[in-house]
């Protein structure tokens, strides 16, 4: 008796920053992994703007020590790191991801895709935690160990956390919105899938006392550029990101926040 080995295509849609991206896989166990990882960002039934076919491969197929590389080749974005290989065609809006059955590789591919999309729309991903208080979003940026997760952990109960790792800055008209992301840092938990107008950005520095000092635009641009997440080797997009940050600083105040790590720091916020 002949048996047909039928593989069912499962589509899940992950919406970040208002952009729904579909992931197709034939592995139902992988769908469960993704649903758990992306929880609030998993949107059943939503029409995607882009889609990826995910091909699961055994772990260790690629060079595990390879850093992320992103470049445009023959009209297609190519993204590679030690744990994945991905392509994405902006024309057809389709792509492929080859990775093992883990949620972290796809998390990285999604980050990269969103940086590429944001670069053309005046936004960017910022290495920052962020939260919404009284309808306004506040971003806390810094390199590793600067205190992004510490500030998030100290947030009072009226603050809704958008992320403790990678903040999504989206330009809508003349306004900048911060959107929640599933991209988690030390907290290990995704943010809320909500958005709010950005009221201020704080560049973090741990100190014995709390103070917030508004930064001059030039210094703010220099410091923010260090914390913008952008991976592609593409001079045109790098230029656009720089211009986006300059325009952002002209609209949104940037402060240097020196803080002692206890809850009193939030008295300065909002």
């Amino acid at each position, binding site marked *: 008796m002949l048996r047909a080995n039928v593989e069912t295509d499962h589509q899940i849609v992950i919406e970040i920053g208002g952009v729904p991206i579909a992931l197709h896989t034939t592995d139902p166990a992988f769908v469960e992994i993704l649903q758990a990882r992306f929880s609030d960002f998993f949107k059943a039934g939503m029409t995607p703007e882009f889609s990826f076919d995910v091909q699961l491969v055994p772990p260790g197929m690629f060079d595990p020590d390879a850093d992320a590389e992103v470049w445009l080749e023959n009209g297609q974005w190519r993204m590679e790191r030690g744990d994945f290989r991905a392509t994405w065609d902006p024309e057809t809006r389709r792509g492929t991801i080859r990775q093992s059955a883990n949620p972290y590789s796809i998390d990285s591919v999604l980050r990269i895709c969103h940086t590429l999309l944001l670069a053309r729309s005046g936004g960017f991903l910022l290495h920052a935690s962020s939260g919404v208080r009284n309808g306004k979003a506040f971003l806390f940026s810094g390199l590793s160990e600067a205190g992004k997760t510490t500030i998030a952990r100290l947030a009072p109960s009226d603050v809704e956390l958008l992320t403790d790792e990678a903040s999504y800055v989206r330009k809508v008209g003349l306004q900048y919105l911060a959107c929640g992301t599933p991209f988690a840092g030390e907290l290990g938990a995704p943010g809320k899938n909500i958005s709010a107008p950005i009221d201020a950005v704080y560049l973090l520095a741990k100190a014995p006392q709390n103070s917030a000092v508004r930064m*001059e*635009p*030039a210094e703010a*641009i*220099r410091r923010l*550029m260090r914390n913008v997440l*952008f991976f592609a080797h593409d*001079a*045109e997009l*790098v*230029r656009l990101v*720089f*211009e986006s940050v*300059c325009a952002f600083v002209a609209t949104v105040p940037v402060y240097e926040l020196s803080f002692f790590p206890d809850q009193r720091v939030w008295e300065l916020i909002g």
Partner: protein
Amino acid sequence: MAYSEKYVAKSTTIASRLLGDETIVMSTVDSTLFSLNPTASAIWEAADGKTPLSRIVQEKLYVEFDITLEQARADAEEFIAELAAHGILVVYDRPIAQ
């Protein structure tokens, strides 16, 4: 003076923004950022590849800033050598086409 009769132009692989009298320049090749002080910004703004550096020094630095001509030349030399080494400014022997 090494660059006196040379022509300087901004590289095509940069992005820049003038903020007050300070300019931030970024290489789009490696994302390196440069901050230009007011005198360096004046040279940067005038670096059109058509005006000889000696004229830029005379008209933009010596006349507009409170420095001696000698100091203006020295500042320009240092600035151009540094940015040219990073590929941010390009130095030509002749004026470049529009």
